């Protein structure tokens, strides 16, 4: 059958089909270039000499190689703090979110649980209605969360969407596992820890990935709640400040930072270096995690 197919289709490769393939290839090449070029260009600029970079027209390779910008960025004390805080919030935030969401999903996915639908509804409502920016600012002030590290990890910890993704997955695990464990005298915590969790590792990985990326990339909470606290600044927020200093005085970014030395470091290259440092961990990791986020999106969306 298949053999027949191929022999039939091969000769019928019409002119239109060839044109299609050519156009499609061109489209994909354009797509890849547009996606990659700006990123690679930033990398090139970050390794370029400062004053030279201001002239622009750096392509994919630095014109005058220099790693001064990286030195400058890494020697800034705020950057060091920012890096530590960013890493910490990503780790602590992910662990907390994972533990609580998994437990909540476990509770609402127990078929015999007394308040199963009520608890689900309680959380689903939060997906549609939220208080908005100002009430949160006031709430965190009242709770004395503003100006602390915990404002990054506690408020967004439980999230109805992540919970639903996990719940869907847990619903697919046969009840008989739970029942037989209960016959052997296992309590609910043991069932959660020893039976359900080991089976849910793929979906845990998915949710952990979503949370971790969100934590690493967020900057707005730093600006709203910890603007004055230098010790809780984050990498993204520092980058934001660098970017702001450039966007606010359009085009006039030619002044050098330290004119005393002949070595040159300009805001352009410093920002490029900071950008590269900020995106490096994610770029290195994401290709290996593909299978998890594809699963997660498919569970959350199309499920047939």
């Amino acid at each position, binding site marked *: 059958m298949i053999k027949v197919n191929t022999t039939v289709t091969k000769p019928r490769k019409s002119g239109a089909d060839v044109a299609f393939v050519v156009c499609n290839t061109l489209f994909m090449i354009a797509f890849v270039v547009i996606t990659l070029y700006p990123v690679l*260009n930033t990398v090139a600029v970050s390794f370029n000499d400062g004053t030279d970079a201001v002239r*622009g027209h750096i392509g994919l390779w630095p014109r005058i190689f220099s790693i001064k910008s990286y030195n400058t960025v890494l020697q800034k004390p705020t950057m060091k703090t920012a890096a530590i805080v960013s890493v910490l919030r990503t780790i602590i935030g992910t662990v907390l979110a994972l533990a609580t969401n998994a437990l909540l999903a476990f509770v609402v996915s127990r078929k015999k649980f007394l308040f199963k639908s009520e608890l689900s509804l309680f959380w689903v409502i939060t997906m549609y209605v939220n208080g908005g920016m*100002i009430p949160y600012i006031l709430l965190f002030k009242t709770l004395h969360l503003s100006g602390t590290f915990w404002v990054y990890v506690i408020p967004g910890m439980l999230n109805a969407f992540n919970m639903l993704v996990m719940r869907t997955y847990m619903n697919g695990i046969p009840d008989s596992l739970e029942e037989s464990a209960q016959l052997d005298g296992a309590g609910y915590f043991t069932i959660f820890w020893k039976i359900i969790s080991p089976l849910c590792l793929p979906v845990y990985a998915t949710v952990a990935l979503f949370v971790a990326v969100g934590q690493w990339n967020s900057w707005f909470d730093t600006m709203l709640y910890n603007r004055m606290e230098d010790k809780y600044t984050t990498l993204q927020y520092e980058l934001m400040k660098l970017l702001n200093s450039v966007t606010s005085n359009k085009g006039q970014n030619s002044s050098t930072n330290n004119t005393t030395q002949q070595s040159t470091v300009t805001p352009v290259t410093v920002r490029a270096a900071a950008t590269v440092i900020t995106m490096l961990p994610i770029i290195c990791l994401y290709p290996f995690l593909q299978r998890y986020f594809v699963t997660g*999106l498919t569970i959350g969306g199309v499920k047939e």
Partner: protein
Amino acid sequence: MADTNDTMVQSAPVKTNNARRRKRKPGDEFKTPITVKEMKKQSFLLGCTALFVIYGIIFNYIPIIGWLMAFQKYTPKDGLFGSQFVGLAKFKFLFDDEVFLRDIRNTLAMGIINLVTTFIMAIVFAILLNEIKNTLAKKCIQTISYLPHFLSWIVVCGILHDALSINGIVNDVIEFFGGERFNFFMYEGWFWPIVAFAQNWKETGWNAIIYLAAITSIDPCLYEAAAIDGAGRWAKIKYITLPGIKPTIMILLLMNVGNVLNAGFEVQYILGNDVIKKVAETIDIYCLTWGVSKWDYSLGTAAGVFKSLVSIVLIVIANMLAKRAGEERLF
């Protein structure tokens, strides 16, 4: 963030529907009667529930009570329950404020442009990528296409700002074709396209994941049969692939309508400047300006409440339409 929102909305309506249905027909599902013995048995679950509910009340429900501020002349000194009520005065101020009306227009315009363009791009990209027969090339392109999704808006806007700057690549290309170099961020007409481009650059590959999944679930026999009948690439896309993913397209479109007002705050905030303020400011930026910089908590809250209410109405309408379209099986 946008994507989590997208998918969030997709899966949610179903759960509420199910919950509602369950209540109407109690015989449908086994419900454990509430007894002391059962409660003792489930004490661990109940304990967790108590904690989750307390957490939810504090971090999700109390802020909603904060909406009261929109109807008050709120001062931190008097607090939420001591401040003077002013009725709808704040809302009246909002709708008399030209800036707010302008911001509604901007939010809606950018939301709609972003929604339409990202939708079309994701579908086109998914279909075309599916036509690439070389598996390695396909895999590589897809991996590259996800990359921007993992970058923060700060990074994306920084990169975009460089590309569009006077000495940037875009101006190089313009000059190459004989045009004049110019600063994109000084012209109002360019801002919405830039925002739309940023959105597409960041999310096309990511949004295409769901369509690619839908395409793979189409029965390959259909393509084989079409090939025997002499269908070319175009015919196969038009008569098999597109109808095959139509339900997915419909559902995602309807569900994203509720998100239109959320479409973009960060890009506008980061890339906007005083020169192009008129087209760059959105409702969220308005909240931020009044609530944080100008200390008028009540006005900021009122603008937020307005936005939330419109969003809820849009979501409800979208859900009704989705139900009527009869595409529930997707979830």
